[in-house]
């Protein structure tokens, strides 16, 4: 029994990290309709921010969040206004905007990565913060990873409540469902989309800071985060906060279970097997709306 509860807890903690990295992307892709390929680069940029606040100015990463998150929000808001608004304006339909935004953010990816390479070089970075054991129901977990899970749950829960219980949240969901009709009912699409995109940016900033406490990163490691986030977002259903949370946690538990019960070599295989199964069974994702 302890083995199973251990698997469940360790899996939740790993899955919390996956969910955390995916929440911002699902907001950006699901609501603002921007398939942001430079997502992982911004995550790594936030990690560098945390690293330098910690090692350079002795600001601990939790306090660092207070600086990095608003900064990331602002940077993404500007990115939307300057780079993405022209694409939104000239897009004749949803498909066109998706293709254009993929191309544009692909370019942004190289710009951000290039700047980081110039500033920090290609080498790996890693520091240690809150890497202390804590015993939960008989399982030993690392505090920093547990913190990432807690943030994922808080952010995911808060966003869910915001989207379902508030007027602005309802407006955002309306945009996600039908941008034209939303506009006709008096919603300022551009302002709301910019807000959603920037909010996604704030979340990716938080994810970058939290993850830097326990993962080794370099200027080149952003693509890996984008890939994993994309899997979680598509599996959970584009634009669904609950979907991203559940899909992320599921992947974490599945990977840990396979690793402990069968073979650690199969963890990547199980990720993709689950992904495929979810898509075959529910092509729009676990919590996705049926295709329009």
């Amino acid at each position, binding site marked *: 029994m302890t083995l199973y509860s251990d698997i469940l807890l360790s899996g939740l903690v790993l899955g919390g990290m996956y969910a955390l990295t995916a929440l911002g992307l699902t907001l950006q892709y699901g609501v603002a309709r921007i398939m942001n390929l430079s997502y992982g680069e911004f995550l790594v940029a936030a990690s560098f921010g945390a690293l330098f606040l910690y090692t350079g100015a002795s600001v601990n990463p939790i306090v660092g969040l207070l600086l990095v998150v608003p900064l990331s929000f602002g940077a993404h808001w500007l990115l939307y206004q300057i780079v993405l608004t022209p694409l939104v304006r000239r897009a004749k339909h949803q498909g066109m905007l998706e293709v254009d935004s993929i191309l544009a953010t692909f370019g942004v990816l190289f710009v951000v990565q290039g700047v980081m390479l110039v500033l920090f070089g290609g080498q790996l970075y890693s520091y240690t913060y809150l890497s202390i054991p804590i015993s939960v129901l008989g399982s030993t977990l690392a505090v920093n990873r547990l913190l990432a899970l807690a943030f994922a749950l808080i952010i995911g829960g808060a966003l869910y409540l915001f989207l379902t219980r508030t007027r602005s949240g309802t407006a955002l969901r309306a945009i996600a469902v039908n941008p034209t009709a939303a506009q006709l009912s008096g919603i300022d699409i551009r302002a709301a989309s910019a807000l959603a995109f920037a909010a996604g940016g704030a979340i990716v900033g938080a994810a970058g800071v939290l993850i830097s406490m326990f993962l080794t990163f370099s200027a080149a490691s952003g693509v890996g985060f984008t890939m994993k986030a994309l899997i979680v977002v598509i599996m959970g259903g584009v634009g669904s906060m609950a979907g991203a949370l559940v899909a992320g946690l599921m992947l974490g538990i599945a990977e840990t279970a396979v*690793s402990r019960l069968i073979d650690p070599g199969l963890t990547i295989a199980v990720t993709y097997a689950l992904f495929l199964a979810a898509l075959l069974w529910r092509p729009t994702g676990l919590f996705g709306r049926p295709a329009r």
Partner: protein
Amino acid sequence: MTGTLLKIASLRIVAVGAVAMAIGWAGMASAQEPTSIKIGWSISKTGPFAAGASVTTLPNYQVWVKDVNDAGGIMLKSIGKKLPIEVVEYDDRSNSEEMIKAVERLATQDKVDFILPPWSTGLNLAAAPVFNRLGYPHLAVTANTNRADELTKRWPNLTFWLGQPVEIVDGLVELLTKLRTDGKIGQNIAMVSVADQFGIEQSTAARDGLKKAGFNLVYDKSYPFGSQDMQPVLKDAQATNPDSFIAFSYPPDTFALTDTAKVLGFNPKVFYVGVGTAFPMYKGKFAAGAEGVMGIGGSNADLPGVKNYIQHHKAIIGREPDRWASPITYASLQVLQQAIERVGKIDRAAIIKEINEGSFETIIGPVKLKNGQYKEVWAVGQWQGNDFYAIAPFKQAGARAPIVPKPAWQ
């Protein structure tokens, strides 16, 4: 009339002759009086290999070029003066096709005198036939392959400097066997490895070697490249209660394994992790926690040459070099310089011969290649105090005594 014609004709001849002479003289001058030695390299500044190349390879190229140029350059006896190094650099974006294009371009377009190797086993093996066809010496320092004997026979311009995977594993197995004989550790070993060429080659060799030596492998698993959570693997390894834990891992996994072992309080008598243990950032990250951790590589940090080199590298680059391939990379460049100076002119065939046959004085001590390979390589190092000291092969001069059992995590 005829006189004028003759005059014009002869003027022309004079003019043509003068131009021809001028061209010839300029040509002769450039052939005989080069103003620099052009050295090119193609290195991964971006992409997945940038992490390794920017620790082990590129900084050493930069330090060496600066050192040579600060000393006036490389002495060429044939013209009786020192020539500074001029650098041509390309980024191969961690892509073997880009790297080969860049190497070809260095030889044919930039017409460099020497080409320094790319980073990693894969890129060096891909580059080997190209270097050979172009006739350039190939100092494949960061390549680590069991086919070294065969390859250096096929391509005499190719030299290896980091030992063979089998030799690295042998060093580890011999060390563990000796520790067992001395009664410091028992039979049980837990082993994990990354599931790619490096991890598979090393773990296969280790599995054979450990079984032959009579060890008991209580845990033996591989994990996928890029795994972000080492807890499942380590919890199961810990449950088998091994005397020794060995991991053939890459830098991010090496850090994660150490970090997680610390969190779990998993402290076997021998804790050995793979690539990255020899990085100064390992000590930076774990501080006193690094004490007693073993890993791949190591250097004889008591040698004055190595000691000075570490300080010098830090002064120029701003951070310390790694303690495995970095000192050897710098030493290989010293060998190149000495070989050029002994030959005294840019005669690449003669320089290749000298690299293979000569004896050289370097920061890591005397270097004499055997079958195109540097053999006095360290297999296992251990963090002891502030440095990562070589402890195996333990019979090799300069090896320190290992600290076993490993002290508790700090």
